[in-house]
């Protein structure tokens, strides 16, 4: 195996592809903190041509390739077993002629047919996309689009993840109620796949096929370019941001009230984002300036013994015209209009809540279970909080038009036993909550990955095997994910102090 790695290194040196070799501890894991060992080779291609050369080499020499971007996924699919080439896609389509990744760029805007469009002359109802390299992130793109007052349509809460990564995980996020999951918001994809002899560069424009490919976790090829849907930033007078609050000692009551409200909202309103979080006294630091905010500060002082949930909506005034009335019919719910910056500040707290930890790791947990019938939310919450008794970490979630999605990740100190306990908690939680009679389903959109694949639905395995056969007949892309034998260890076992 060492010979194969040596040959790969020589190849990378000869072809001028930026790479790094040695004991690459920084790449031993992704946000799942699962590991298959320390990789010894990572390549950083900058465009499609380099990806083609890489894949050709991999096919000829039968070396597996594991695609990776920022590694912010909790699925563990960008973790490379020894003997494979880790391919970091962050530079693809994001470099200048000299090969330097530049943060400043002018976005290329196209319409649904791929024709160039001048964004400064576009109308707010136009269906527009940015033609972008897979290495770009929503953060960068939003910064580039800001002056025209447009944003990326679907932005996952890890907005520093790349578009290639968003497509690979079929991420959902801010904007999903309007534009769907990430795979739904892409109009065109270029990817470098394999054939029995070498590499193929493909362009896919059929929307159904693109949806099929979304969420493949790098099993099908290296995505190099995408046309990603963008949306106009609403003007202040058109936009409505709302914060709803409810608190109770009884989670069932809390859940059933909010669930009832959500059911009504889904039926009568159209919105871009519906996000919720549970607030306790430790969710932000004592010194955090948000505590002193004249409007938002009050939300961070929940009375002891009560659970407080906060639900945020953002959309057009027209689309959400019915919302104040609906909220008014629930006496336990406090309704307030807030500004967009205030909405963003609360969202920041919510994002940090999914990952904030004092010397802890987030063990992959219940990422994406969906409750189809919001009226069941109360029952789900009772079981959830019972299973979570005394555990750290905070559930957050989305209100999507088709249901309520909840995220929870158990947190563990950096010790093997603690991590195993956290994993056990995860399993208890899933046992308690993932039940058909509660209309709960495990969506698995944050995906496969090592340990989670074992528990995934058989139907999903079938879909992915079919995709692999079609796109990757040479089976070079992350073969370890589908052969079911790879057992990942938690990287926490490797910590040395």
């Amino acid at each position, binding site marked *: 195996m060492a010979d194969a790695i040596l040959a790969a290194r020589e190849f990378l040196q000869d072809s001028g592809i930026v790479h790094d070799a040695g004991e690459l501890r920084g790449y031993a*894991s992704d946000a799942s903190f699962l590991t298959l060992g320390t990789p010894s080779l990572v390549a950083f291609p900058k465009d499609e041509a380099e990806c083609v050369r890489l894949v050709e080499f991999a096919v000829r020499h039968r070396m597996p390739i594991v695609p990776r971007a*920022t590694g912010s996924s909790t699925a563990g699919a960008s973790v490379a077993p020894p003997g494979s080439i880790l391919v970091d896609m962050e530079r693809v389509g994001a470099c200048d002629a000299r090969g330097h990744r530049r943060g400043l760029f002018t976005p290329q805007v196209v319409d649904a047919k791929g024709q160039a469009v001048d964004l400064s002359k576009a109308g707010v109802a136009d269906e527009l996309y940015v033609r972008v390299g897979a290495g770009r992130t929503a953060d960068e793109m939003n*910064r580039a689009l800001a002056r025209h007052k447009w944003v990326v349509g679907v932005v996952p809460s890890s907005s*520093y993840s790349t578009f290639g990564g968003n497509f690979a995980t079929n991420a959902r996020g801010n904007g999903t109620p309007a534009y769907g999951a990430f795979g739904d918001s892409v109009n065109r994809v270029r990817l470098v796949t394999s054939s029995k002899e070498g590499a193929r560069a493909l362009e896919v424009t059929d929307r159904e096929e693109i949806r099929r490919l979304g969420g493949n976790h790098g099993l099908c090829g290296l995505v190099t370019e995408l046309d990603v849907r963008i949306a106009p930033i609403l003007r202040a007078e058109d936009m409505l941001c709302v914060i709803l609050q409810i608190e109770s000692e009884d989670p069932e009551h809390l859940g059933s009230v909010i669930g009832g409200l959500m059911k009504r909202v889904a039926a009568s309103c159209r919105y871009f984002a519906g996000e919720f979080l549970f607030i306790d*006294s*430790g969710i932000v630091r004592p010194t955090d300036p948000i505590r002193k905010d004249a409007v938002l500060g009050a939300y961070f002082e929940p009375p002891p013994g009560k659970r407080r949930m906060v639900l945020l909506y953002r959309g057009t005034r027209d689309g959400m015209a019915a919302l104040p009335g609906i909220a008014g019919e629930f006496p336990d719910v406090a309704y307030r209009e807030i500004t967009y910056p205030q909405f963003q500040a609360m969202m920041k707290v919510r994002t940090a809540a999914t*990952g904030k930890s004092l010397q802890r790791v987030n063990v992959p947990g219940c990422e994406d279970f969906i409750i189809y019938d919001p009226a069941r939310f109360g029952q789900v919450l009772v079981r959830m*909080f019972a299973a979570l008794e005394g555990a750290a970490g905070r559930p957050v979630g989305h209100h999507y038009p088709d249901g309520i999605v909840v995220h929870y990740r158990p947190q563990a100190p950096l*010790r093997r036993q603690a991590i195993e306990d956290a994993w056990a908690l995860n399993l208890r939680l899933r046992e308690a909550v993932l039940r058909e009679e509660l209309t709960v389903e495990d969506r698995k959109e944050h995906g496969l990955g090592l340990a989670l694949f074992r528990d995934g639905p058989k139907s999903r395995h079938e879909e992915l095997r079919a995709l692999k056969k079609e796109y990757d007949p040479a089976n070079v892309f992350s073969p370890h994910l589908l052969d079911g034998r790879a057992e990942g260890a938690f990287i926490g076992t490797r910590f040395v102090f």
Partner: protein
Amino acid sequence: MTLAAPLSAPEAFPALDPALKILTAEGCVQCNKCTFSCPVHRVDVTFSPRKVILQAYLGGGDAVSERDLWACLTCGECQAVCPTEVPYPAFIRAKREQLRPTMERAAPCKHGGFKEVVARIMARPGLKQDRRAWIGDGLKVADKGDVVYFTGCLPYLDGIFSYCDSASIGRAAIRLMNAAGIVPVVADAERCCGHDSLWNGDAETYRKLVEANAAWIKKTGAKRLVTTCAECFSMLKHEYPKVTGDLGVEVLHFSELLEELVASGKVRLTKPVDLQVTYQDPCRLGRHAKEYDAPRAVLKAIPGVKFVEMDRVRENSMCCGVGAYSTCDAQTKFMQQERLEEAASKAETLVTACPHCRIHFSCYIDGRPVDPLPELKIVDLTVLAAQALE
């Protein structure tokens, strides 16, 4: 049913070295947002703060490579975007202090370490400097008074960076103060503020400089201390109190004093300076000390100046490419090209509020830019304001 209280700091791991304690007290979640905002990563893709942190967690004390240790600008862009506010620059600073004794060569200053030598010389007691010769004629300074002008490296910078005339910044500052009726104290007892010593891990020299400076500052009996350098400012205002307690003076950056003098009418800026300018927020004045507004107020008060902001300003401002004179390397040129292209797209004049930003940018322009760069002049804020004095 109870909710878990926030978990407390790690007592379970007493063996953590001080640098690692800084990191783990906050809890990096490996989201990679730091790497994405890092200016060094943009031009050197193998440089990643996230990776350094993970390697530190996995490998313990010695796992930071020399390259990773000295390429960091300590500009703080990573900390500004981090969801858990991991203080990465403080971590690098602590690591440099820890690893310095084992390194063959100290901070790899590309000017042979001259600034370091000067700082070490100034840390010696009994030094008898002449720190006024550079001032020249026609300007008034004193031995005692209410306002101390802390000059920093001004007497020394032009010895190496001769194409910059940094001393003109000090002369402009004194001229403006004199016009407002202030005769500032310029003390021969002054030493280097210790910024580079602190950030390059030379704790001993830093401590000596702090003690020497605190001694003479307290003896002047002055009420205010002003400096034209962003680094001296961040040191004297935010770092010195951690070592010596309250210095007993109000510490101001010159832009803050000038804003006050203009607003109160003590200084009148009446001669038009017809220029379109843009402004570089220095890392040490901006992200480190949170002063974004005073320099902008000064620019708006200068008649004839048309001020256009760059896209990346205030807490998003991009570093001039060199931190504490120890990070200048191959990647620096590309970072400077990126930032100066952005500036040149807004104006023909880039205004800085730190003499070191000015030196680093001027060094790049004076040398050989790696790509075509439109005509751009680098001007200090104080010098520009003094041009508007009648």
